[in-house]
């Protein structure tokens, strides 16, 4: 018996600014939530990254407390480690020349009020704007606990040209 349940999908086939899942991450039937993305491409000639932010009551949670630690393996430059930021970064550079980004993240403690920070494990794989392959894995966190119920994915430059996002709940 699978403990996964498909809760929602955002399937993008024309230029779209955001993929938003509101009103799911506060469902206490689930102990965590997995989001899988595939075929993510940009419609922009300029390079950008795929970011995401938590949401609360259909509003972005904008803070400088989106932490990430990631090890990346890049065919163009070996391994790197990075930290910190105002949003979680979920791809390497994308533009309309070099698709594509794929990956998955699992979120815990999204809706615990003030008691526990949000923690996330994730993996991402991109063929970036330079044509290099970049794999990264690590952990994400948000140091401000809250009653988050949604999440938004977007590009720092341009819109999504195509993308499949699927949100799954992991049953208690």
């Amino acid at each position, binding site marked *: 018996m*699978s*403990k*996964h*349940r*498909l809760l929602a*999908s955002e399937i993008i086939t024309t230029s779209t600014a955001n993929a938003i899942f509101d009103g799911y991450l506060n469902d206490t039937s689930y102990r965590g939530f997995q989001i*899988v993305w*595939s*075929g993510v491409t940009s419609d922009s000639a300029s390079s950008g990254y795929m970011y995401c932010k938590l949401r609360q009551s259909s509003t972005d949670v904008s803070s400088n407390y989106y932490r990430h630690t990631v*090890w990346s*393996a*890049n*065919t163009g430059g*070996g*391994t790197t480690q990075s930290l910190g930021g105002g949003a979680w970064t979920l791809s390497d550079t994308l533009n309309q020349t070099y*698709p*594509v980004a*794929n*990956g*998955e993240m699992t979120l815990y403690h999204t809706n615990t009020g003030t008691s526990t920070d949000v923690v996330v494990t994730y*993996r991402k*794989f991109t*063929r970036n704007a330079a044509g*290099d*392959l*970049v*794999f990264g*894995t690590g952990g994400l966190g948000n140091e401000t606990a809250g009653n988050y119920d949604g999440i938004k994915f977007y590009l720092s430059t341009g819109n999504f040209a195509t993308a*499949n996002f*699927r949100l*799954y709940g992991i049953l208690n």
Partner: protein
Amino acid sequence: MALIKINDFSATSVTNFDLDNIFTTDYDVYDIKINSIDMVNTTNAQIKMQFIDTSGSIVNTSTYYRTSFIFNTTNDTWNYSSNQSGTEFNWWLGGAADDTEGMQNITIFEPQNANVYTTGMFNANGWHTSGFVYVQKGGLREDTQQAVRGIRLFSEMDFNSVSATVWGYSKS
């Protein structure tokens, strides 16, 4: 339901371990879990992987790319490892007896979409005969836009026994 078991596979005394007819248009994303591997001897080896195209032929071209990093318990450092224009994907399997060769988890994105490059991510761990444990993680890309229906796993030596389970992330 969301994470759907597609099939279990097992074999004994084989050179190639084929997981054929596992990719369909019912799913975009797949998890392949190699549950156990026992090779014919204890020499350190690699696991190798090729795709099976929609006609049942092995994709045997120099179009397999891997980027990855390896952590081992001898030096506490992530080391970069890549393979470009290979005739197969490859990564460390390790070497040991009695089903203790490394465990492997592979995620494959959009293998049935003939308009994109099939990509994947893998997590592997194992035991090296020099006396250390290693973890290898990375991304995979087959540089041909074609649909594929399965994978072939093989190594420098035959399998004594091997088993795997394939899961699909449901789209509805």
